[in-house]
């Protein structure tokens, strides 16, 4: 009975915590405060965006126990690592090494979980991309020779993932950041992009708060702009040639999608949406220039961060994106950012994505009020 009460209390505490979902680890946990916990598992909570195990640990200041929440990667990543919810069960003794929550709550990011009975390390995840193919394969094409960007019905299945960079900065700059876009040295902020003074100050503010205000994780806001091509879980192009449009399904974006029109329409009419229909992905029109799909997107709202790391943008943002499938397994993504509301000039960036063959796009669901 006491176990149920403690577990329920722990869940309630988590439910009341600020919502975050598959956030930058540093947004919530302090990598300068390592901690080792040994105790008995009371609950395994195997849900998006992060799995948790709850562990009763002897109170160092008394005779009772304290219930700690150990946060782990998402169930998607854990399952890809070969783990399932039964690998750790209530009653198991474990030793957890990790880093503690910045807010002082009894939460720890589990860098290592070891079962005491066997000494086996469990629930660890590696996200290294598979090795590139030994030989470049030719670009798959439609009968009219136009490159194919998506899976082929009855043929090659897969999606695009493992971006060569998960952070965005101006081309030909090399600034050290973590995978979530957190600068190693905040003094480098002005070098990231040609920001206006207010945008630079806002970017610094977001960085100094360890990206904890990121609306993509805090409120499950869609990852519009170039960010959709830098998130975990990749993207998939679905080419609807009959209606001359391309759907971009976003694995890391709460299972939402973007439409790119290739029917020759222009940016006319109510491009920017309105309060009832704010456009997180903007309005995209495209044409093929040789083997490159050139996409012109505008009409974005200002309710989201368009990059990992929190570079600001305004409603004046226009993106010119170029997608080139350079070989079967490689998609080159180039983007020019034109936003006179936030930047002093237009600037460019780019990276590549890898074809992940014979796999379905992961179904990651952001859930508000879930840490």
């Amino acid at each position: 009975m006491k176990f149920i009460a403690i577990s329920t209390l722990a869940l309630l505490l988590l439910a009341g915590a600020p919502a975050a979902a598959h956030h930058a680890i540093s947004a919530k946990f302090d990598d300068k405060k390592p901690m080792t916990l040994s105790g008995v598992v009371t609950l395994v909570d195997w849900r998006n965006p992060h799995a948790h195990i709850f562990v009763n640990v002897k109170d160092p200041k008394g005779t009772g126990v304290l219930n700690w929440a150990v946060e782990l990667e998402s169930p998607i990543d854990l399952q890809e690592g070969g783990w399932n919810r039964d690998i750790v069960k209530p009653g198991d003794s474990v030793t957890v090494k990790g880093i503690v929550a910045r807010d002082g709550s009894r939460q720890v990011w589990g860098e290592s979980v070891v079962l005491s009975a066997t000494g086996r390390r469990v629930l660890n995840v590696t996200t290294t991309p598979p090795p590139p193919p030994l030989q470049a394969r030719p670009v798959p094409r439609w009968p009219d020779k136009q490159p194919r960007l998506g899976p082929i019905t009855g043929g090659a299945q897969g999606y695009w993932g493992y971006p060569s960079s998960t952070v965005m900065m101006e081309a030909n700059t090399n600034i050290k950041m973590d995978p979530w876009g957190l600068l190693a040295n905040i003094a480098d902020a002005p070098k990231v992009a040609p920001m206006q003074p207010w945008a630079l100050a806002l970017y610094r503010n977001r960085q100094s708060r360890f990206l904890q205000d990121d609306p993509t994780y805090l409120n499950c806001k869609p990852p519009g702009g170039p960010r959709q091509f830098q998130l975990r879980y990749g993207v998939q192009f679905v080419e609807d040639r009959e209606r001359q449009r391309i759907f971009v399904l976003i694995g890391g974006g709460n299972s939402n999608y973007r439409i790119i029109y290739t029917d020759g329409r222009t940016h006319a009419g109510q491009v920017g949406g309105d309060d009832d229909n704010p456009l997180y992905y903007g309005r995209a029109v495209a044409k093929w220039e040789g083997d490159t799909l050139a996409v012109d997107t505008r009409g974005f709202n200002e309710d989201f961060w368009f990059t990992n790391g929190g570079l600001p943008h305004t409603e004046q943002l226009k993106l010119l994106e170029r997608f080139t499938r350079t070989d079967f397994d490689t998609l080159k993504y180039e983007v020019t950012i034109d936003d006179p509301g936030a930047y002093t000039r237009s600037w460019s960036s780019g990276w590549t994505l890898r074809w992940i063959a014979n796999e379905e796009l992961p179904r990651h669901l952001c859930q508000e009020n879930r840490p």
Partner: protein
Amino acid sequence: MRRQIALFLFIAACLLVAPARAQEGHPLKGSWIGTWGPSKVHSNDLLVIMSWDGKAVSGTINPGTDDIPLKNATLNPEGWVVHFEGEAKDKAGPINYVFDGKIEGLAFHNRSISGTWKSNRESGQFKIQRQ
């Protein structure tokens, strides 16, 4: 009467559950509602609408028949200091308002600006919160 109360409660409930618009762009852009007055117990409603075109902040104080266009509106990112002015007129003549404040809670959608205002007739404090 009962229908009116029900309608009021319904609207209030809708407002309570309406999702907050994050507004991650220019920190001044949006609608700001609060009060201004010589003292906290003697204050009036204040509504300021602000926008940003990439070069300048523009907007209106208390939109309506007696609205006051914003003048010389600036945001200094060093300390997030806000300044704006407005020129109004009544039977007694022109009134020149000057507001100086600071953004608080920058990271949040319901950030606020608080500070002081003065005119050629009186002065006081103001606080407005982004809606």
